[in-house]
């Protein structure tokens, strides 16, 4: 691996500030665009509290929480992807590719069968079920794929596919036994579906994203050392196993929070960190925080397209991310996966 660029505080701050502005711009745009066609002047009037009624509901109760869900879910999935990629030393590792999203989705549907919904306790329970599913799926993939020398690219992908298929089948079993009338909603949810969620759920989502983000971002420097090889890292005083466990827990937590509150949206964790790596190099101290902001902006952009392109009907945002993600995946598989520096 080439020497990581010195991530001087000023350079990093400038970069993150710039990305923050992008996030702000996309959020403002999303606040003004929608199928209800609220005139821009009225959106401003709502924001300054001069208009009430339906326009206020549309802007503040529908668009704003949905924007926040998109930012959180996109950021969480992108950081989870960056974490899994650093952990597996594999550019294609990503929550949905690794089957971790499917595990979390299974947990969520189990929780829904038991009727967990919107209150604070229930939101935590929902996330806990998703986290359990994500841990089981991630652990299974690791056990299946690990060889003495590490995690070979193709074995890891195949293990992810197999575990993903297993949990998808388990989800199908659950869907078959729960009430027929609920089928339509669950199938849409599985495609990835952003919607305005309750403030309590939003708070739980934000807290979990903060914890998961801290677990991964806080270990970025040690991840850089780990990329030099475990032995060298250990000589430099890094507890390799501890770092790996921390990243795994953080990435699984981020994935499960995103799945619990936004649905299993694929490919965000692939597109965003890899694009940042292509543009800015592979210093995890830059890539991971940038992924947090970039992932949010990307998913919000995708969701704004999804909810407007066939208005008044809506697409699932997962469809948009999959259309963006599959060509990207093929590119990485054909061009970059052979490159050991990724």
């Amino acid at each position, binding site marked *: 691996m080439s020497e990581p660029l010195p991530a001087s505080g000023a350079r990093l701050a400038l970069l993150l500030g710039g990305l923050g502005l992008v996030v702000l711009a996309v959020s403002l745009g999303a606040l003004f665009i929608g199928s209800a066609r*609220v005139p821009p002047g009225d959106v401003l009037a709502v924001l300054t509290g001069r208009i009430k009624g*339906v326009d*206020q509901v549309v802007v503040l109760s529908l668009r704003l929480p949905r924007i926040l869900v998109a930012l959180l879910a996109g950021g969480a999935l992108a950081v989870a992807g960056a974490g899994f990629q650093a952990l597996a030393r594999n550019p294609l590792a990503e929550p949905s590719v690794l089957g971790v999203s499917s595990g979390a989705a299974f947990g969520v549907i189990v929780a829904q069968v038991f009727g967990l919904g919107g209150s604070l306790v229930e939101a935590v329970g929902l996330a806990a079920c998703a986290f359990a599913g994500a841990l089981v799926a991630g652990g299974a993939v690791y056990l299946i794929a690990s060889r003495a020398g590490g995690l070979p690219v193709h074995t890891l992908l195949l293990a992810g596919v197999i575990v993903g298929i297993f949990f998808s089948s388990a989800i199908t079993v659950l869907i078959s036994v729960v009430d*027929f009338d609920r089928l*339509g*909603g669950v199938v849409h*949810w599985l495609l990835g579906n952003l919607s305005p969620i*309750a403030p309590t759920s939003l708070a739980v989502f934000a807290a979990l994203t903060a914890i998961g983000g801290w677990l991964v971002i806080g270990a970025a420097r040690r991840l850089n050392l780990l990329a030099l090889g475990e032995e060298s890292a250990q000589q430099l005083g890094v507890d390799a196993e501890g770092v790996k466990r921390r990243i795994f827990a953080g990435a699984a937590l981020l994935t499960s929070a995103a799945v619990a509150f936004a649905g299993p949206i694929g490919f965000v964790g692939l597109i965003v960190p890899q694009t940042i790596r292509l543009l800015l190099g592979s210093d995890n101290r830059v890539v991971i925080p940038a992924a947090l902001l970039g992932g949010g902006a990307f998913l919000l952009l995708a969701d704004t397209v999804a*909810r407007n392109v066939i208005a*008044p009907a809506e697409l699932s945002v997962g469809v948009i991310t999959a259309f963006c993600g599959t060509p990207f995946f093929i590119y990485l598989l054909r061009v970059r996966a052979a490159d050991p520096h990724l």
Partner: protein
Amino acid sequence: MIRLLTAVALALTLLPSPAGALSVTDQTGRRLVLPAPPARIISLVPSVTEILFSIGAQDRLVGVTDFCDYPPAARRKPRVGGMLAPSLEGMVSLKPDLVVATTAGNRHETFEQLERLKIPVYVVNPITVADVLDLLTRLGRLTDRADAADRAVAALRERIQAVADRVDGRPRPRVLYVLWPDPLIVPGRASLVSELITLAGGDSVTADGGQGYPRYSLEAALARNPEVIILASHGSEKSPLTRDKWERLGQVPAIAAGRLHTIDGNLTHRYGPRIVDGLERLARLIHPEAFDRAAIR
């Protein structure tokens, strides 16, 4: 002479050919030849199960699906599995002489497999209220319960007319009907629920949406300023249709005015006789003022 000819023609279309065989056309226009009036029927459709019970033909019903939960006695009939993948073996072992299936919810493969096994399949395809009444009549003829079916249809028509009389001439409130909240799924064009809302004296704000039951943008629906919002509930379990999510949108006029209601989806989504119960409840929710003093039933 003409009367005789008519009688013969009628006999030919309805009932026996010399061997006692019976030729019928199902609701999709397919022609079936049955050796005799069916005495062992399997229903793959919850609404057909309801209809057979309502016209007193339940003794001929030998098998139902896991979803046939009404009337409660239907639960005691042998079950053949779900609607999408009923058990072929289970069906064959019940020795049916007719299986009733639907284009909405069953798979075409099931029809073909049954026909390869020489089990006749009667396919129903109800979309409108008229189709539901037609289905009652047809199933009555098929099970020798024509009189009971005709009486049931007449009673249902009377109740539909009673609702029409009550809501006639009143302003038509804009109604948002929520089949599923998240993602929002609503009744669109050419759907039973849209028709029921119209019959109940309301205007569905999503009636111009896609065919059947499309996905719809919540903000687009709210921008049409519905005066009444009706949430369908599904079964007994605590579903994600809980009202609190909607009550947070308190600035929406319908909700602020206390016109957020729930209705049992089994009454409005199933193509059986209970759609008229559903119609009456919808009418009461949309036009409470029309039902202030007297009840229709």
